[in-house]
């Protein structure tokens, strides 16, 4: 009866065919194409950054300068933030409805970007750096606002009120930085200036990653343990700065109510002991939720408290420059300790007169530094560049320029702070432009006494003092003493840079510098009894107003421990403000723990205002 028995093979064949076709397709998906696993991982894994603590910053003696405080960002996932009671939200966060919409619009934009990159989920910073009040208020009410969450991170807490310019401040990562460096997310804090900026790569530590599973609606579904992407956050290593903060604070107190800058360097290492600018600001202003507001105020403050004069400000070095000129004169063979020049109230050449103050005449090299004779250096300057050794004045000047540049002048020293100014050592081209092609030594003679086109930063002046202290070399001044347990110091801060002036001649000049605080010297009366201070005053003419008061010094003479440059803008004579400030700081540094010898002078400087 069963006519179609053989048809069973059609069924078996059909089943086999379908099974085969399906297995081939599955084989293609699973074995031949290996993109699918990655796609699955991209779908379900969300990498959440864990913020490390930034380095704790200490001074050279281990005094705590900067540490951290926990801060909170309010995060929103815009797609999930539906049905928010905006009025209530604004009430809790103490923000305006306008702000709410503005923040939300920004968050939405960032969220979209992030989803496009498929790296993180679509959450974005809504408000960063919540205040304590905002944090506790929103924390209690988070359940009312779906899509919102609070993410911890750390912000800076300053243990000190000073040192603002060398420590620097943090700010939110700029759009430019975000585009350049994928390490940063919008709202991340980065060092904008100072040590915080230069050593950002160390100080920031290493962000950790916590991977979590997230489902199709971006809801977190537990931590992905043992995932290859997981890593703990690593705090930034302890950062030891070269600053002596006691000296720094002391110097800041001296420079109070004045405009100017102090840079102190340990000559043997190039370590910056103090970096002071006035006016300045309290670094604690630039933390937390007040950061942006305070920053705007500081930025528009006409007193320019953010301005780091020590490395950005340029000044004619005035008479302090005579030390360098004398050294070059010796090297060029036109100056010996016994060289004497007379001075009749200044230097006269035809119609040209460079004035000088009354003093015994003639002077030798030592005396010329001690009493700062202008005529002596005008003569020296001409001897250097009009030297018959050289075919013409320009080759003579070129020799001078080369020497000057070996002192680190006219170019960035390479200090570990952003925005350093080069200062200026006039090139022949510059002089040609200014004085015409056929200038003579007499036309640029003001360079002899540190006026004219020559410009130095306070850092360069201090470095000159350090060079003289070291008798011919310097290490690039720096604010880092050591990073981390191994006290890592970048190689560029170990290398000695030699000047083109031989070590032989330095003592000749130092002999003169020792005279400056002695009877007959320009800064007599500002010295410290038991310390041999070698120094040079300067009074830089300032076309915009009163002369700047300048002073460079190092001490003690044997095995110098500190080299310093002080500039008090519009302070008049170098001996009036700059010299006492520098010498008091030298005393503070070298006679630490002893009673100040000059309480009267200290009091006068501290309480005076110079405008």
């Amino acid at each position, binding site marked *: 009866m069963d006519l179609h028995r053989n*048809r069973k093979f059609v069924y078996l064949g059909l089943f086999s065919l379908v099974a085969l*076709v399906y297995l081939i397709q599955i084989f293609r998906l699973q074995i031949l194409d290996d993109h699918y696993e990655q796609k699955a991982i991209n779908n379900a894994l969300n990498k959440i950054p864990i913020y490390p603590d930034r380095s704790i910053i200490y001074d050279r003696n281990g005094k705590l300068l900067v540490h951290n405080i926990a801060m909170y960002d309010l995060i929103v996932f815009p797609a999930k933030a539906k049905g928010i009671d905006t009025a209530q939200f604004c009430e809790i966060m103490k923000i305006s409805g306008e702000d709410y919409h503005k923040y939300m619009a920004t968050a939405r934009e960032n969220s979209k970007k992030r989803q496009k990159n498929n790296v993180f989920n679509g959450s974005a910073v809504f408000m960063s750096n919540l205040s304590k009040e905002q944090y506790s208020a929103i924390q209690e009410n988070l359940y009312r606002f779906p899509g919102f969450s609070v993410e911890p991170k750390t912000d800076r807490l300053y243990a000190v009120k000073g040192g603002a310019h060398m420590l620097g401040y943090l700010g939110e990562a700029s759009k430019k930085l975000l585009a350049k460096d994928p390490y940063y997310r919008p709202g991340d804090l980065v060092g904008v200036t100072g040590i915080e900026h230069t050593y950002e790569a160390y100080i920031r530590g290493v962000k950790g990653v916590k991977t979590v599973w997230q489902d199709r609606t971006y809801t977190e579904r537990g931590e992905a343990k043992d995932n290859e992407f997981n890593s703990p956050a690593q705090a930034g290593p302890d950062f030891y700065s070269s600053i002596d903060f006691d000296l720094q604070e002391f110097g800041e107190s001296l420079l109070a109510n004045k405009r100017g800058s102090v840079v102190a360097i340990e000559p043997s290492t190039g370590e910056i002991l103090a970096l002071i600018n006035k006016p300045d600001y309290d670094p604690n202003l630039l933390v937390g939720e007040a950061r942006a507001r305070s920053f705007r105020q500081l930025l528009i403050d006409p007193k320019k408290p953010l301005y780091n004069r020590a490395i950005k400000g340029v000044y004619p070095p005035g008479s302090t420059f005579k030390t360098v000129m004398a050294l070059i004169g010796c090297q060029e063979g036109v100056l010996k300790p016994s060289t004497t020049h007379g001075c009749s109230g200044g230097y006269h050449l035809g119609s040209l007169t460079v004035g000088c103050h009354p003093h015994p005449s003639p002077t030798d090299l030592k005396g010329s530094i001690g009493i700062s004779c202008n005529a002596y250096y005008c003569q020296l300057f001409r001897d250097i560049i009009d030297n018959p050794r050289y075919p013409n004045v320009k080759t003579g000047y070129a020799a001078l320029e080369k020497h000057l540049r070996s002192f680190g002048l006219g170019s960035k020293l390479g200090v570990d702070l952003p925005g350093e100014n080069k200062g200026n050592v006039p090139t022949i081209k510059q002089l040609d432009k200014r004085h015409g092609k056929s200038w003579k030594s007499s036309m640029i003679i003001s360079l002899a006494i540190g006026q004219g086109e020559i410009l130095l930063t306070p850092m360069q002046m201090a470095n000159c003092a350090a060079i003289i202290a070291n008798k011919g070399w310097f290490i690039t001044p720096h604010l880092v003493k050591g990073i981390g347990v191994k006290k890592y110091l970048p190689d560029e801060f170990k290398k000695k840079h030699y000047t083109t002036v031989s070590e032989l001649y330095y003592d000749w000049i130092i002999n003169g510098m020792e005279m400056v605080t002695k009877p007959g010297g320009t800064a007599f009366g500002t010295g410290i009894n038991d310390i041999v201070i070698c120094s040079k005053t300067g009074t830089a003419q300032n076309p915009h107003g009163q002369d700047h008061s300048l002073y460079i010094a190092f001490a003690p003479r044997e095995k110098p421990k500190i080299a310093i440059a002080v500039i008090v803008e519009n302070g008049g004579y170098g001996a009036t403000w700059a010299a006492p400030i520098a010498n008091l700081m030298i005393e503070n540094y070298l006679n630490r723990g002893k009673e100040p010898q000059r309480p009267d002078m200290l009091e006068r400087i501290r309480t005076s205002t110079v405008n």
Partner: protein
Amino acid sequence: MARINTSREDNPVLDTVSVWLYVLLVIIGLISVYSATSEVNQTFQFSFSSIAGRQLIWIGGAVIIILTIAFANVAIIDYFAYGFYGFAILLNIAVLFLGKEVSGAKSWFGFGGFGIQPSEFAKVATALAIAKYLGTYGIRFKGTRNVVITMSLFLTPMLLILAQNDTGSALVFLSFFLVLYREGLPGWILLSAVWLIVIAIARIVMEATGISHLWTMGTLSLLAALIVYFGRKNRQLIIATLFVAAASAVFSVAVGFAYTKILKGYQRDRIELVLNLKQDTRNMGYNLEQSRIAIGAGQFVGRGFLKGTQTKMGFVPEQHTDFIFCTIGEEWGFVGVLVFFGLYFGLLFRIVTLAERQSTAFGRVLGYGVVCILFFHVAINIGMTIGIIPVIGIPLPFISFGGSSLWAFTLLLFLFLKVDEKRR
């Protein structure tokens, strides 16, 4: 369970191979449902209120069904076949009025937290009724009356289920055409169906890419001309060819019309996505892509039990019901798929063998009814998850979560195994 000793007759047990394959598949299903509904790498936790827990309760119910069948008198099956069919038809009519709507389809009776889908049981009842009818002494699948009655037996529930707006379940009834082939349905009818599907797909591709009907006509004319030329001595062939060509042309135009004017947008989308005529990373296309990603991510040995992120995080839609195969593919890889196919197609082959050893038309038709329904489900369901068949929402028998389908398929399989046990 495999050796249920019911009597002292010739075949004292249900077919051992089938029972074991069934048991293994149900266990795989339970494991997959558990995995699909748990968190990644979750430690073992179980409760009867969870989805896997509810599946276990359903399995408990299935065991009762099996035991009942095992101890029942086989005559009851034959005796109540029409009654059961009539009852199923009534339920499927009633659900149109009393049912609750679940995602657009009105195919559920709700009882508190649980629901019953009468369309699942209509399959069983229809298989029984057709077997009973064709098993009746003196009736064969021949003659207009017999053919019409047989066809109405499965087209009636199919239409009712279409009315419930449950297209997937309704399409399953097409598998009875496959059953009838064994009973003498001429092969050319099935071949025509295949030919029509080819024409339809070709037309849809052309429709979607904007190619005119003239191309279809031209191609058909060319083919017909060739056949007529080479078979010009055979008059019958010429007439048949011309007829087929004309019918095909009409059908093609009709498909074009139906496709553009009758099908809804989402239905067109589903078809076009599978035919690769459309790239869509959202909605349906997204689901299909996620389903492929899930299976593809399994690679050779799979990502491991409870490690399938695609199927646990909601990327794959209907992860514990219609798309349950993704969990198997993702977590057990190609190796797991091979084993699974081995078991599943092993069961299908086994049922064909059992059907062939039946001495009665009733047993044979019932056997083929079982195997064709199962085959249709497997082919559609897995074909959909791997992206070679449009998304049609029907469960993977024994594996997908769901009481109605598990019970219906259990009933279907074991009624046949009982009949097989008592074969003479």
